[in-house]
């Protein structure tokens, strides 16, 4: 009996050790970032780098073909690219692997959502010393780059192509309504939207000029508010939605637009043409159900593929009447690359990160073939770019000094502004009696929720 106990205890202990090793491996094996004494490119011992990325399908083929160019530049480095098919859970997998000590040498991720955590926790290595060493500066990218690759004064990621947002408009409908140019101010946007709207006899919407609902496709209330110059946090990191008048202005503009249609009508319209139709050939803008739409640069490629007959134009998203300076800026943010803690070949991984973020050939080829916005200042005007004229506003938005990743990075990912979205949900439906006290509540809720993750 006693020996059985011992055997069992031994087994249990083994299991626990295995478990502990699985979760706690983060403390040991980290090789500190940027520690290389010699310039990284001088060491030419053959190495194989592991790179994790979420590209799939054709884009994966295009991407991996580009890695051959990298290998040609650095013949002693072989890149083992591991594609992870689900971009939504990609970063979760990366975090688990790094914490377990099984992380890759370099990471390419689609969303900057985790960068706040990556930088502040040290899970991704600080890149500044590598950058200094090789003369790479954050100024090589558009000013917005800093807003989603740097956190807590740590530059732990670099941008590698990006998304940016603007206004799509249907030229045929504009001509029919007698509108000669796309709206530049929020007042013009609303006036044009009304002119372009076609209602059925029962008041329901046949064609919507512009759908201002926060969940309609890409539009968030923050995309509207930023055009009034909205800030999310003050210098102390406290949310300022109730004290920055931009938010109330944007919300009132939005409500006025909704009331023009009638809430039930616009909800029905959203039910019929929004939702799952967004990324299909039955997209509301592509099928002529909306005349103007807030969307990302990728739509140009979608239209070309799905509805080449559509006569459309693109422009900057309108700015508030009293903020003409903001015309040309919008939300941006996209793919990021970095070197995880525990990378076995950080010096060589840096060469790859440098290639993926700054190599002009790579950036322009990916921009041409995948249809994302090129991220370095130089490539924005490169003659090698073969993109349609409708793409230009998105490049310009990326380069604009007032564009930024928005709402800003925190260590709590992108969930922290849920109280705002919940509030807007009620606001849109007309279920908010006092806007100011509602926003004050939102501020408090966001602050309290962020406090749950505060670090000493």
């Amino acid at each position, binding site marked *: 009996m006693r020996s059985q106990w011992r055997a069992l205890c031994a087994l249990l202990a083994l299991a*626990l050790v295995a478990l502990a090793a699985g979760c706690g491996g983060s403390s040991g094996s980290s090789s500190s970032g940027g520690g290389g004494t010699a310039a990284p490119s001088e060491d030419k011992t053959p190495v194989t780098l592991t790179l994790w990325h979420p590209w799939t399908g054709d884009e994966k083929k295009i991407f991996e073909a580009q890695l051959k160019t990298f290998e040609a530049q650095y013949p002693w480095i072989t890149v083992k690219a591991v594609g992870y098919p689900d971009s939504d859970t990609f970063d979760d997998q990366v975090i688990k692997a790094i914490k377990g000590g099984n992380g890759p040498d370099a990471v390419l991720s689609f969303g900057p959502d985790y960068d706040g955590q990556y930088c502040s926790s040290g899970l991704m290595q600080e890149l500044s010393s590598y950058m200094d060493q090789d003369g790479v500066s954050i100024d090589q990218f558009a000013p917005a780059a800093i807003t989603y690759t740097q956190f807590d004064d740590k530059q732990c990621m670099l941008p590698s192509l990006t998304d940016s947002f603007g206004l799509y408009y249907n030229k045929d409908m504009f001509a029919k309504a007698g509108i000669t140019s796309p709206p530049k101010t929020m007042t013009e946007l609303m006036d044009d939207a009304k002119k372009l709207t076609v209602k059925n006899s029962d008041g329901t919407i046949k064609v919507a000029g512009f759908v201002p609902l926060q969940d309609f496709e*890409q539009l968030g209330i923050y995309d509207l508010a930023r055009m009034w110059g909205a800030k999310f946090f003050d210098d102390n990191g406290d949310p300022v939605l109730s004290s920055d008048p931009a938010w109330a202005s944007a919300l009132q503009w939005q409500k006025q637009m909704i009331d023009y249609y009638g809430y039930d009508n616009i*909800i029905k319209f959203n*039910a019929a043409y929004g939702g799952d139709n967004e990324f299909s050939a039955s997209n509301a803008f592509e099928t002529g159900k909306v005349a103007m739409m807030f969307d990302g640069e990728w739509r140009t490629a979608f239209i070309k593929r799905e509805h080449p007959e559509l006569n459309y134009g693109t422009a900057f998203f309108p700015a508030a009447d009293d903020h003409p300076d903001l015309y040309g800026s919008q939300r941006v943010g996209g793919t990021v690359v970095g070197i995880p803690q525990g990378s076995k070949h950080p010096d060589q991984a840096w060469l790859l990160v440098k290639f993926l973020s700054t190599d002009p050939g790579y950036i322009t080829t990916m921009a041409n073939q995948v249809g994302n916005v090129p991220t370095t200042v130089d490539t924005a005007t490169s003659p090698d770019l073969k993109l349609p004229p409708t793409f230009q506003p998105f490049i310009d938005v990326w380069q604009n000094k007032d564009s930024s990743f928005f709402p800003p990075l925190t260590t*709590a990912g992108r969930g922290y502004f849920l109280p705002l979205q919940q509030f807007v949900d009620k606001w849109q439906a007309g279920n908010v009696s006092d806007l100011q006290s509602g926003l004050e509540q939102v501020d408090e809720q966001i602050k309290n929720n962020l406090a749950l993750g505060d670090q000493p």
Partner: protein
Amino acid sequence: MLLLLSPWIIGFCVFTAVPMVLSLYYSFTHYDILTTPRWVGLDNYRYMFGVGGLGQDPNFWLSVKNTLWIIVFGVPLRIFFGIITAMLLVRPKRGNNVYRTLFFMPSMAPKVGAALVFVYLFNPVTGPINRVLDSIPGVTAPLWFYDPSWAKPALLIMGLWGIGDAIVIYTAGLLDVPRQLYEAIAIEGANRWQRFRYVTLPMLTPVIFFTLIIGVIDGFQYFDQAFVAGNTASGQSSTLGNPQGSLLFYSLWIYQQAFVDFHMGYASALAWVLFVATMCVTAVLLLTSRRWVHYHGNLS
């Protein structure tokens, strides 16, 4: 003996006991998965219930209310329709197996797939249900998943479509009622209602009790359908618990705190409150069951 049990014991410890103990510990910390947990005592629980000046979690009571709603309405309806359908299903003389298979089939559909189909069926404009409703004069069809007062009922209807598992259990229960009891009550001159009330129903109580417990526990953990319906109906960038928080169930809130906000400590606290609440409700049901559940063995 212990050695024989060891595969289970190790599995239990590694996958259940250790994580439970750890999550209890985390519930007293602020923990973001990446850095070391920081002990904060009862802060997470104070924030949850809004005591002690840390503010109040705005979605805690909302998610509790939504979850209780789905239990209070969902579980009895499930039992009611389960029994009715089972009673109809034991009647035909021929083709029994065909009918039973047909009624069971929906519960084999994956929850996510089923939810997607129902979002389509309930679409206020393009869905077939509202097309029919709209064609009836004088009827204003509801907006279902786009209206906070109709979103939960839509989920209930979807739930009632998939009660095949309950039907199978009730059918077995009905077929198990001793014939002689019906004969005895027939001699007493009972009508159909009395036969149901004094024979069928009491003999079904063990089965009802089982489905009640399972239903309540399932209700506390309600997630898949709400998550899919809330997300799909409103599009890609949707707000959790759409429309207007009406589908924000307790498990969704745990998910949001743990895996979107990275508040693992607070999520652990929420999970422990859920665990304790489930245990308490189950215990109360077990205690009351002595009064209304009749087991065959007690007949004699």
